[in-house]
């Protein structure tokens, strides 16, 4: 008997759909619960008061609508409704109503935080949400299989592109090639400068680590050539995102990118 190693790494469409629904619901729940805890930062003497930020909105009627939406009680209700939509995503799966609501409310949240709260994780969250919306809308007008194919490829192309762009632009920078950029960014990170004896202060180690991640990220498109490569790529990516969380405090990045992995593995299995 011969074992088909390739087939054992391929993700079936129903399994990929369930995996992305659960991972995305988890990722968005973490974000939404954090937004609930952050409400004091949007009031009183705090930085994110809407009375100043509202000037960013160019249309008068939209400004008035957002004034109502971002009143403390309405904003809390919006976040609670998002949690309910996420519960529905976990137990009932994707449908146009829960994904449509999450998409529209996500746009409102982005505006509340001047376009992005946490940069990259907001971008990737929106990518997955748009992919899920594409899957629902296309399924509505065509077959469900075609809809999910479109959604998964949309997410995969964005996710793979994010690794490639992030790695290759660093390869073009001298400070990344000689390893000094990693130490500089880590010193300026929110957890404070690296300790004097920290292993990443050793130039040769910082250089090797920088090169390892830059090359790995730049080769990300190759993960699409084989489902086994895609699984390996996602395992390394999980470690990479955990290290980014650990050193830069970016927990949302970890979950936002993890939610794209079922799509990557599914797409690699289709080639």
């Amino acid at each position: 008997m011969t074992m088909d190693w390739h087939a054992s790494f391929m993700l079936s469409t129903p399994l990929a759909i369930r995996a992305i629904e659960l991972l995305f619901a988890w990722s968005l729940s973490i974000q939404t619960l954090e937004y609930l805890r952050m409400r004091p930062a949007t009031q009183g003497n705090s930085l994110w008061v809407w009375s100043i930020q509202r000037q960013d909105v160019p249309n008068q009627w939209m400004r008035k609508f957002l004034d109502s939406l971002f009143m403390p009680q309405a904003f809390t209700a919006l976040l609670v409704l998002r949690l309910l939509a996420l519960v529905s995503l976990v137990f009932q799966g994707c449908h146009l109503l829960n994904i449509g609501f999450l998409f529209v409310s996500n746009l409102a949240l982005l505006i509340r935080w001047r376009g992005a709260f946490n940069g990259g994780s907001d971008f990737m969250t929106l990518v997955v949400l748009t992919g899920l919306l594409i899957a629902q809308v296309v399924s509505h007008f065509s077959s469900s299989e075609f809809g999910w194919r479109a959604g998964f490829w949309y997410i995969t192309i964005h996710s793979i592109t994010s690794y490639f762009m992030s790695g290759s632009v660093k390869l073009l920078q001298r400070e990344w090639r000689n390893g000094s950029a990693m130490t500089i960014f880590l010193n300026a990170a929110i957890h404070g400068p690296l300790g004097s004896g920290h292993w990443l202060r050793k130039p040769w180690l910082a250089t090797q680590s920088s090169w390892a991640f830059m090359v790995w990220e730049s080769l990300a498109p190759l993960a699409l050539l084989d489902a086994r490569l895609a699984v390996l790529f996602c395992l390394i990516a999980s470690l990479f995102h955990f290290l980014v969380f650990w050193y830069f405090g970016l927990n949302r990045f970890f979950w936002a990118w993890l939610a794209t992995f079922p799509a990557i593995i599914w797409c690699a299995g289709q080639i």
Partner: protein
Amino acid sequence: MSVYWVIGYFLVLVLTLIYKTPIVSGPWLFLLRSFFPNWKFFHAVGYVPHLYARAGIVNATGQLVWTDWVHLYPHAEQKFWHLFHNPKTNLGLAQQNLIDHFWADLNDAPEGCDPRSFVSYQMVAHFVAGVLHNLYPEHTHNQFELRMLLDNSAETTNTHVMMTSPEEVRT
């Protein structure tokens, strides 16, 4: 056939590194910029904007005395469970993002423009007033500065002041 699509996609990505597209801007594009991610994280080393603030207190002889400049840079503890719930750190990161946007607004501003009209300026001024109120409840004046710091892997090697706000009377 699909393999050729992947190779083609890879080549398109390489081309995007070489070909620079013009920058399009506008208020709605700014608010909805998450639809147009550039995926360039921590890529360039250089000057980084940092916010400093100080409070003025009128002493017993009626003289205005300024405190030392306070560096308003976010710090957070490193904990494993922050992987699941991390509001304080994320707020700190968002604060520093705002400082970056404030710097970008100043940098792009035409000559002679009053930065007080920027939303980012007003947000920073409001934030500074709140922080100084907590640190020095009796203060009567406040002022902030945006300084550009250049670091190497061991220390800050150069600093210059990009903007100093007027001395504001506490409201």
